[in-house]
């Protein structure tokens, strides 16, 4: 078990070092940092001085190691545009994205699981097949277009829900939450819905497939034979057995949701990390881009590693892998 742990964590660190390498390449070679920092009237001497002060004359490996050391301590330098610590900027935006992703995840489970169960037990009936078909449509709709349509329908035409921003937020220490105010809760509905649409269909299809598998299993047949009620069978016995893959999927998808939130955040002007990143792309603010890449990958890798380890704890056979 220890060997497995070491291997998994080692693997994760290796992956992060490579990601950091990409981030470093972006940071160092796309757009000369010196040219981006000085104003245009700076003399060559000033430029050279800055260059050596930033350590850009050092060897490649030395610079990379320095980048990794700083990154590990959360130091990505100053944003070229905002002149603020990149990590502070991202930290301020993290709660917004996190809340959006969490609500979207909850939505996807709350809607996806029941739908999955229904389509499984109703297999062959018109409504179940219709739902199953519409799930394909759900995977196919571009999320930005869904967002635009949601805004057009619920925000502009009906005026029920706000179509941009986070509403009123409350500070709890360094964390800012929109969930404690009515306007904040109203504001999260449309973006969370738009972000979760893809995930809902994913969960639904997974639950359906797992349910179909399990309903064919022997223990279910025995239970049926013993006269266990159908409803209890579906929701207590069968569903319980297919929750593990759903939990795994959800954990693995959090990283993807954070990345996809960039699109949602852009459409809904949601002040999260994704919008910060898109603005950094617009303004060629390389330190922010590099930091965002590292942080999102870190979340991604950490979650995946945890899932792997959790699986190994549950099922010792997997430790060999």
């Amino acid at each position, binding site marked *: 078990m220890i060997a497995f742990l070491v291997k998994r964590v080692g693997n994760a660190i290796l992956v992060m070092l490579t990601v950091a390498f990409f981030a470093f390449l972006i940071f160092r070679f796309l*757009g000369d940092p*010196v*040219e*981006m*920092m*000085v*104003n*245009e*009237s*700076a003399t060559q001497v*000033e430029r050279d001085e*800055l260059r050596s*002060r*930033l350590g850009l004359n050092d060897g490649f490996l030395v610079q990379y190691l320095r980048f990794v050391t700083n990154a590990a301590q959360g130091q990505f*330098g*100053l944003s*070229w*545009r*905002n*002149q*603020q*610590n990149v990590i502070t*900027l991202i930290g*301020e*935006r993290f709660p917004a994205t996190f809340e959006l992703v969490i609500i979207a995840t909850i939505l996807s489970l709350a809607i996806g699981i029941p739908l999955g169960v229904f389509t499984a037990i109703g297999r062959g009936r018109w409504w179940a097949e219709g739902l199953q078909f519409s799930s394909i449509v759900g995977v196919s709709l571009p999320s930005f277009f869904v967002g635009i349509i949601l*805004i057009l329908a619920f*925000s*502009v035409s009906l*005026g029920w829900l*706000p*179509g*941009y*921003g*986070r509403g*009123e937020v*409350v*500070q*709890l220490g360094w964390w800012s*939450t929109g969930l*404690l*105010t009515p306007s904040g809760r109203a504001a999260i509905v449309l973006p969370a819905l738009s972000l979760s649409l893809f995930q809902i269909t994913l969960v639904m299809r997974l639950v359906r497939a797992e349910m179909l598998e399990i309903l064919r299993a022997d223990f279910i047949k025995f239970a049926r034979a013993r006269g266990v009620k159908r409803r209890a069978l579906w929701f207590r016995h069968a569903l319980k057995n297919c929750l593990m893959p759903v939990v795994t999927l959800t954990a693995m998808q959090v990283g993807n949701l954070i990345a996809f939130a960039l699109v949602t955040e852009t459409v809904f*002007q949601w*002040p999260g990390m994704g*919008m*910060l990143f898109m*603005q950094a792309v*617009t*303004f*060629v*603010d390389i330190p922010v881009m590099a930091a965002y890449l590292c942080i999102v990958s870190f979340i991604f890798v950490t979650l995946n590693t945890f899932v792997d380890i959790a699986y190994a704890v549950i099922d010792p056979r997997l430790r060999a892998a």
Partner: protein
Amino acid sequence: MHLSRILVGGVALLALAMPATAGTLKWGASRDISSLDPYSYGDSFALGVLNHAYEGLVRYDRNLKIEPALATSWEIVSPTTWRFKLREGVKFHNGADFTAEDVQASLKRASDPKSPLRGNIPAYKGSRVIDAHTIEIDVSAHYPLLPNDLTTIYIFDAGWLKDNNAEAPTDVGSGSEGYATYNENGTGPFKVESRQPDAKTVFTKFDGWWDKTEHNIDRIELTPIASPATRVAALLAGDIDFTDQAPVQDLPRLAASPEVKVLEGTDLRTVMIGFSQRDQLLSGAANPMKDLRVRQAMQLAIDLDLINKKVMRGKSRNAGALVAPQIPGYDAALDTPVKADPEKAKALLKEAGAEGFEFEFNCADSLVNEEQICQAVASMWSRVGLKPKLDQGTRAVQTPKRSAGKVDVYTLGWATLPMLDTYSLTSQVLHTKEGSFGIFNWGGWSDKEFDKVTEASAVELDQTKRLAMEAQSLKIAKEHALMIPLHQQPLAWATTAKIKDFPLFSDNLPRLWLVKM
């Protein structure tokens, strides 16, 4: 238990955080300011926003004429020395008194080699504190426009700068944050309560302001909303009270709503197109645009009326001159827009042997409907047989190319801010690129005669003669078809109907201390 405590705490905080809605003005801008430090970028919009917290020695009044602010009077004591009497009894937001030391420290910071604002005070040499409320400023030559320049040199508190190690402008290269980037201490009518970049910046009323308070705003919330459609929706829904960038295409809809008031005018900003005057194009081919006939042909190909009607929805003002009528130095005789004549354009191109040449058309995204203007112009050029290659990008992407001179043809919007004088255009855009001249002369144009007239206009203290010289330099530019003027762009602000008095400024900078809700 733990959770419930957090929740209770949250509710308590919520009660505290809920602002009184009375007197709160929510401002939905198209973009955010990049920093609270007015010396971080020479960006007119950011300087306009920060003017609510910081002030200069002088400022523009309701008619965009210079009026005293932190200075009460000034005189020219020698050709190169100005003496300013400073206002007494002015307090900074932290309670410190305003003195000549503060002015000196601020001028030093603004003129620091690392200051991006250095170009705003090109003639500044140094300053001397005479007494607590008198300061002398040295300039490099006769320079009548010093007060205009000083409108955007906002005054910091010297002690505050020193205490917070912010005496020099923030140097991104140093890797440490500047204190002034996210802290504010000015003398203005509002102070900054909180700021979250790109999300929300909150200003509250400063009770100790020296000037008579005309506004009745307690709180300003500045929220950037980049998407024009979202901005309009937010205004219609009452989520914001004011936007300084109402999209022209949405004006009919906004005007039709009883909830919204639209304020329209013409911006001082003149949109124009410039040419490379280098020997080679970016592609390496010889540059046909050095030929006057080619530049004229390109101008004749553009149908200003059509752009005005379709792209600008009739809200722009077609231009013949390179500056707006309100700008000193403007000459009505030069302001006759060129009528489109594609046939003549084709003939001229043929005559010059430049039919169908290919060039890059560098376009950014900061002007009103710039992307649409560029496509329309490119299409008009294509129709006379030219082959423009549109290079569209954000301002941050295009600016480095432009200042490095890596452009064939480019767009430019020039409002002569903050100087509000033709000299801003002639010295920065059209003068040969040398020293502090021609920083925005991206095409690399150079004309001895033009430079001579421009330089002479800078040191002429007789206002009538000076303006005549400026008109003369504009005439030279027009004769050479140096730049193609397109239009003065529309100025469209919109507020909710509840706001009573909202003065419109043609420099497109809201001055909320003059607003009554």
